[in-house]
């Protein structure tokens, strides 16, 4: 990837299909239905929030989309291509990215190395036996991403010595490697201080326009400020969809969030 400053745009705006189309996607863990018959389409460049209580199936949904596990039934299309049976790395190479709810970082490596590895994964030199030289394009890209999430002063710090908030920022930098077309953010604001939240909103809203994302977020303030559309999930199913304002006003959603009889506690 010789990506210059901005994130590459491979979509060219020509594709007529949705960025991400789910058709009747479900996931069974034995007899437990973690995800049932989820159908929705996200347009390219769209920013959508997925809300729901614990156990609503949000992270399972992400895992099915990125291929961490295969859905039991249903199909997933990514920019018109059926990726249902693709292994995870093939989906990533097509421009899908994700962050993890619990940071999955390489604790023994420093910040720059983590981002560098992420950038190698979506570049052609992932099997290279040659170390990066000073003018290496992938390494330069990694440095840009480190700066983008304001971690440049901690670039040489081991991940195990980072604060929690910095680790979350690093997760985001790694999700921006290469030429992302669509990103899944799994609770990026969890555990962040109010200042760090403001910073996060800043990073999310300043992403290039063609990069769409789906964000799982418990913090309504963050979720509704960065998204244009909301999908509400409950017990593994899509429960409500609509504009942020509609969802906030919806009596059923309010009942659920204010602790209705079967709202929380499906962990």
């Amino acid at each position, binding site marked *: 990837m010789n990506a210059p400053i901005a994130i590459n745009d491979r979509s060219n705006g020509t594709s007529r299909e949705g960025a991400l189309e789910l058709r009747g996607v479900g996931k069974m863990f034995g007899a437990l239905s973690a995800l049932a018959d989820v159908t929705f389409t996200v347009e390219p460049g769209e920013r959508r929030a997925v809300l729901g209580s614990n156990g609503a199936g949000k992270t399972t949904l992400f895992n099915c989309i990125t291929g961490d596990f295969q859905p039991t039934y249903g199909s997933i299309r990514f920019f018109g291509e059926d990726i249902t049976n693709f*292994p995870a*790395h093939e989906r990533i190479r097509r421009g899908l990215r994700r962050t993890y709810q619990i940071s999955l970082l390489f604790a023994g490596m420093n910040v720059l*190395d983590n981002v560098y590895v992420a950038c190698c994964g979506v570049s052609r*030199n*992932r099997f290279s036996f040659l170390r990066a030289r000073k003018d290496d394009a992938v390494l330069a890209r990694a440095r840009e991403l480190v700066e983008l999430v304001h971690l440049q002063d901690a670039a040489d710090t081991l991940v195990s010595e980072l604060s929690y908030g910095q680790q979350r920022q690093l997760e985001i930098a790694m999700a921006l490697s290469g030429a992302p077309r669509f990103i899944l953010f799994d609770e990026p604001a969890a555990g962040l201080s109010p200042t760090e939240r403001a910073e996060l909103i800043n990073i999310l809203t300043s992403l290039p326009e063609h990069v769409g994302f789906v964000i799982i977020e418990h913090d309504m303030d963050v979720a509704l400020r960065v998204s244009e559309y909301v999908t509400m999930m409950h017990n593994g199913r899509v429960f409500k969809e609509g504009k942020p304002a509609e969802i906030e006003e919806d009596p059923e959603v309010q009942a659920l969030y204010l602790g209705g009889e079967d709202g929380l506690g499906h962990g």
Partner: protein
Amino acid sequence: MAIIDEGSPKVGRNYKKAWFERIPAAYWIIGVLLLIMPLLVNEFALYQIFGWTFILAIIALGMMLLAGYGGMVSLAQMTIAGVAGYMLAIFGDSAIETISQGWPWFVAIPIAIIIAMIFGTAIGWLAVRTEGIYTIMITLAIAAAFFYFVRQNYTIFNGFSGFNGILPPNLFGVDWRGANAFYYLTLFWAVLSYLVILYISRSPFGLALQGVRDNPRRMAALGFNVTAHRVAAYTVAAFFSAIGGILLTWQSAQISPGTIGIGPAIDILVVTIIGGMAHPIGPFIGAFIYVILKTFSVDILTSIGLSGERFQLIIGISFLLIVFFSPDGVLGLWKRWRDSLGKDPLTGDREDNS
């Protein structure tokens, strides 16, 4: 862990120094000692102690790469070394003229290494489907199967007796089995293998391999084909073990099923674990300790009135002691000792980062 060899602010004081000034004095001393070793020790030590140490270490570097960087313990590295040795005997020259093809060394050696690498890749392709103890079991099974196969196959592998009279080429008019020449030959390949593995460990391939070890799921979510990466690691590891196998075959001028049995396969594991798998220097430390024990334990045992055949006992007890006190080998002991001092004994600098 820096990906490239540029000075970070922490080592900024080294900026103006020439490259040779940046290498700590202790490394220079070790380097010079290794170079002038033939002046210091006798031919037996050169050939049997140092030559054998370097050979075992090169074979064990393959295991260190797989286990230390990749988290995959393969017991088949000695088998891969054996494949290289056998192929050298079959395609090159040996005393068994009915089987050996007698091709020149510059054809036979590359063929031997390539076949060993293909063999290693096939083992990897099978073994990466498993994790942990199952990887050990499947590679041990392959090692055992290959041992029994070559012992019973007379048409290609000449069965129980194997091949003898496998000599290194008289390149540059040097008898490479002479003590001095063989010492430098093994030293050269040992240092080269060591440096190459050290270099690879910071390349995209090496970093990704360590990432696969720590978190395969995350690596897949970064676009890495985890399975392909693991198999490739087996291929690379086979390259080093194959070089070791060729040197080992030249050292004793023969290869037979006994060279690649279960015992030798486990010896490589012992060497790797005694030394430590965190750094490519580990196999060298482990191999040196192993060779010293194996060479002198007979003398120690007979001096205290025990049968010399019990040398495995001494090796076993030493192994137990090292693993008991330091599960990560001598390297782990060294690191803990260094941490307790709080400074780098090689440079005298206080350690301000890990």
